[in-house]
């Protein structure tokens, strides 16, 4: 290429570039407020608060349960999809400042009972008239809850145990030796022993032998649990075994057990149900309330109280991008837990 052609190309490109910038000027002017607010927010943010640790900082290894919350925590933790929230734990690691021995109701379970995702002051156990004490940790499955119940049994006399079971992951996690790489107690059936809780694999080292429902598998697994599938049947048998175990522990301890069934938010929204249906096996009908009914029937057979939150909560009671409750959801659950307390110990809602 001659120097003249190169020079002509440069001139033409420069003129076109300048004209292009002029054309873009109004478009770019619209972005100035976004640029300024973004820059100032990023610059001021670190000066207006301490760095917030991720939720992993909340938990510590436990050789039986797999993990438990750290004791005497008082700080903000980050929920990656929503924002940060204030967590307070007592000397044993359970949320709230009041000791377990002074409570009327023990809220047993996973992150929903823990109050994960909202400030401690907004969690349902801070809003009830009854003195409610969570004995819960993010990620616990029902097998971990039963093991925890065994540990707490000597301190449960005269109390009501409200066991929060989250359909969105507990039903599968009960059958899995890991949760997101963390080794978890789980239940296994063998011809010789029937259903048993397995803990011998629980160690600090990450689980690498299988990936469970992580990532792309989560929705197909959830869809299968909402349909008449072999997985749903197996999960139902495991739940029945665990509820029976919990009933026996509570009966021996002189406590009253009520299973509080938390639906997946997908089951409360036509769009969510359609999403589940898209991930289900062909020709398998998805029933959004199936897991709740399964748990209710198991409780009724075993003479255990059961409260289906799917009858009381709406999609808006759950966060848009996260399976935990909003503050409104916590207020509603607080009212329901107070409603439970109007029934005397030993007369919980039998399969209501």
């Amino acid at each position, binding site marked *: *290429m001659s*120097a003249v*052609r*190169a*020079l*002509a*190309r*440069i001139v*033409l*490109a*420069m003129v*076109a*570039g300048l004209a*292009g*910038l002029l*054309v*873009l000027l109004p*478009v*770019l002017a*619209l*972005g100035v*407020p*976004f*640029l*300024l*607010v*973004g*820059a*100032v*927010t*990023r*610059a*001021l*943010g670190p*000066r*207006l*608060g*301490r760095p*917030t640790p991720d*939720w992993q900082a909340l*938990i510590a290894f436990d050789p039986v349960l797999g993990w438990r919350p750290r004791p005497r925590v008082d700080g*903000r933790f*980050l929920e*990656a*999809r929503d*924002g*940060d929230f204030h967590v307070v734990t007592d000397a044993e690691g359970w949320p709230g400042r009041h000791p377990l021995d002074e409570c009327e109701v023990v809220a047993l379970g*996973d*992150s*929903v009972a823990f109050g*994960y995702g909202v400030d401690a002051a907004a969690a349902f156990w801070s809003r009830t008239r009854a003195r409610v004490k969570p004995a819960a940790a*993010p990620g616990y499955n029902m097998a971990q809850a039963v093991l925890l119940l065994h540990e707490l049994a000597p301190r449960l006399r005269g109390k009501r145990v409200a066991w929060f079971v*989250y359909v969105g*992951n507990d039903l599968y996690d009960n059958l899995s030796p890991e*949760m*997101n790489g963390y080794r978890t107690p789980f239940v296994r059936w063998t011809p010789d022993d029937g259903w048993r809780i397995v803990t011998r694999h629980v160690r600090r080292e990450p689980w690498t032998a299988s990936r469970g429902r992580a*990532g792309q598998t*989560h929705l197909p697994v959830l869809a299968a649990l909402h349909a008449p599938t072999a997985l749903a049947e197996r999960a139902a048998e495991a739940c029945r075994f665990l509820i029976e175990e919990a009933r026996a522990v509570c009966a021996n301890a002189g406590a009253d057990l009520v299973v509080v069934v938390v639906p997946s938010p997908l089951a409360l929204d036509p769009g969510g149900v359609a999403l589940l249906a898209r991930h289900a096996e062909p020709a398998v009908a998805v029933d959004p309330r199936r897991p709740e009914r399964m748990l209710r029937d198991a409780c009724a057979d075993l003479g255990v109280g059961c409260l289906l939150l799917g009858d009381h909560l709406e999609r808006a009671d759950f966060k848009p991008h996260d*399976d*935990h409750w909003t503050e409104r959801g916590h207020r509603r659950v607080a009212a329901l837990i107070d409603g439970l307390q109007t029934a005397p110990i030993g007369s919980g809602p039998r399969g209501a």
Partner: protein
Amino acid sequence: MLRLPRPPRQASLRAFAAAVGLLAAAAACVASALAGASPVVAATVALAAAAAVAGPGLAVPNSVGWPYRAWNRAAREYATLARRAVVLVAFAVVAAAALIGSTVRLARPADGESLWEPRDTQRASTYASLDACRERPAAGGWMAILGGWAVSAPRNAWTLALLPFVLLLDVLRTGDEDPSPPPGIYTLY
């Protein structure tokens, strides 16, 4: 650069309230000046606007959670549209430069003729410069690399006209361009 930090921590919510407060103060100041107000009145109005807009968010950060998310959504939508406009104009610049003609042979070859060219060995310095780019990022970053390449030969020089557009595309990045799934897409429940 346009998007606010995600997810919104308390500190980010406070900083956002302060930033919008500053923006409101600037807008109020300009409006007052245009209305012919004295500097004292303009300053008072600006202070009042800043306090009214930033105050609630600084006192109760969660109260600006919804506006924060709405602002972020608006910034993302704006950035997406603005990037399309910038790309369109950048292609127009390339098209304008191409009016002079191309050294690349684009026409279909005649029968029996091949477009294959013998592969020449590259100069050793070519590989050395690639390694240098990977191991030691050039001072000035990718802009310096692109600018250096543009001025390395007269036939590359026209690409300097594209630099402002590449810079704009970088500023308008939203972080959503990478299609790979985020690590750990669910948390403990």
